[in-house]
């Protein structure tokens, strides 16, 4: 292809992408600009002044620190449980051949794609029956169960990528399966482990429906639910503060995503994850 034609094609592609990018960036620009705008309202505009007032106003225990801490306890606890259980479960699935592996993996794959939203009403009714409603530990356990299928699936595929030969050396030195999992397999699949961990954490950090249904006391609510309080008394929404809080609440997951972005990007074929 002649160079000029190639260049004009590139230009057309650039233009197309920039149009989409412009449309997508508007809501993001609103939240960033409004967070530092002393007179924020609903539209994107250049702030008429610059203020940390919005940040100052939301950085109180009631509005920011307690909900974020609640989010951290819920999501951190559930992530540790999820990754731990998934790593244990993935080991026999990846290392031993068994007639049960295939049915188990198929059930896991099936569970991966079930709409969790649909079972929240029965989960609520069930949690009332067994006294787990409005408890942090109950919510953590449900979060863990809802993330486990995908975590096991990913973990198994990452584990398949660690050559067995490396473990065999450890076995001859007398290590058992547990030692070989902790000392050899998991360190070697560090990047995969990071992807599973970050993915589970990010999914739960942003989840609104689960804590909204399973927690009742306001002082236990994570940020995903407490953010709705900004709309408590309609008509007098402090948009600047809402924006400032949104930025604070979203920053951790964006940073975490950046941490694993490259690895996720390259291995993102879900097919690829399936093939392992």
């Amino acid at each position, binding site marked *: 292809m002649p160079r000029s034609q190639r260049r004009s094609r*590139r230009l057309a*592609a*650039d233009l*197309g992408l920039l149009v*989409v*990018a412009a449309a*997508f*960036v508007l*809501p993001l620009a*609103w*939240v960033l600009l409004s967070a530092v705008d002393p007179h924020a309202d*609903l*539209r*994107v505009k250049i702030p008429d002044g610059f203020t940390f007032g919005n940040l100052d106003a939301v950085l109180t225990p009631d509005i920011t620190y307690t909900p974020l801490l609640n989010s951290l306890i819920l999501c951190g606890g559930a992530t540790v449980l999820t990754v731990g*259980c998934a790593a*244990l*479960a993935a*080991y*026999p699935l990846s*290392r031993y*051949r*068994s007639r*049960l592996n295939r049915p188990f993996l198929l059930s896991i*794959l*099936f569970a*991966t*794609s079930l*709409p969790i*939203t*649909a*079972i929240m*009403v*029965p989960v*609520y*009714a069930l949690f009332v029956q067994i006294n787990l409603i409005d408890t942090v530990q109950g919510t953590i356990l449900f979060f*863990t*169960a809802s993330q*486990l*299928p995908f975590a*096991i699936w990913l973990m198994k595929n990452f584990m398949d990528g660690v050559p*067995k030969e490396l473990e*065999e050396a450890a*076995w*001859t030195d*007398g290590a058992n399966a547990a030692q070989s999992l902790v000392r050899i397999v998991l360190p070697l699949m560090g990047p995969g482990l990071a992807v599973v961990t970050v993915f589970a954490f990010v999914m739960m*950090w*942003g989840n*609104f*429906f689960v804590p909204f249904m399973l927690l009742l006391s306001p002082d236990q609510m994570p940020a*995903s*639910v407490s953010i*709705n309080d900004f709309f408590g008394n309609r008509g007098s929404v402090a948009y600047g503060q809402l924006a400032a809080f*949104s930025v604070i*609440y*979203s920053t951790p*997951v964006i940073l975490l995503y950046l941490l694993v972005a490259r690895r996720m990007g390259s291995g993102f*074929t*879900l*097919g690829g994850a*399936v093939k392992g």
Partner: protein
Amino acid sequence: MSHPASHPVSRSPLTRRVLRVLPLAPALVLLLLFLGGPIVYCAYLAFTDLQLTGQAHSSFVGLANFRRAFHDDAFLNAVWLTLVFTVLSALVGQNTLGLALATLMRRASKPVRTLTGGIVITAWVLPEVVAGFLLYAFFRREGTLDALLGLLHLPSENWLFTLPILAVSFANVWRGTAFSMLVYSAALDEIPNEIEESAEVDGAGGWRRMWHITLPMIRRSIGTNLMLNTLQTLSVFGLIWVMTRGGPGDRSQTLPLFMYEQAFQNSMIGYGTAVALLLLLVGSLFSVVYMRLLRTEV
């Protein structure tokens, strides 16, 4: 495959087999209790008249909840809106835009590619409720969209009131397109360059190349992506809740919001669960199709 013969500890085969599946136990217990349990309970509750108002006993009512649903205009409305929402935002919006972005990215210059990718992915990584607020501000009267229309001297409008289902569909496209984009970028990367080049030498134009060569080669990714988009969209709750609460009236009330309203605002857990069971069945159906698409690879 079994352990090498040199494995130091020799145990009876049964003990060894038990020890091997032992690590599965914690995950299995959690899954059975907190995922399997509710699904079974869901199937049971859907046939009862359990209410929220603390009545002592609920009784078995057979198919009454389902019969009621299919005569309930509000339910049929929710089914219709769910269909519109899914087709518009998942099948048409996210899928097509994601493919278009992935295709353009292969030709675009690196800075533009990085910038666009970054922005689209940020929209996807944001917590659901935050995305809801951003799009609420975008579509409301005096929001950004109206400001843009004002620049073009077009009348302003409260889009969340006039076209609520369209507004939440666009919101879902904004939030979900990155996933399709990533899936298609990965799929397109796997097409060998020679194939595209030889088609080009043969004089096949852009659209024909897309239709006859590219799309057939990534058809598995298309299937996977459509299925996952659909499943994801069927369970959207927070985004719509934040933007419209399902309103005005019930004009953006998709099935998850309808289910919630029946169970908690109207205190009819039994009826709400029946709707949930239907949603779960539709989800399972898609899930099975999705698994068949991946079947050869498990």
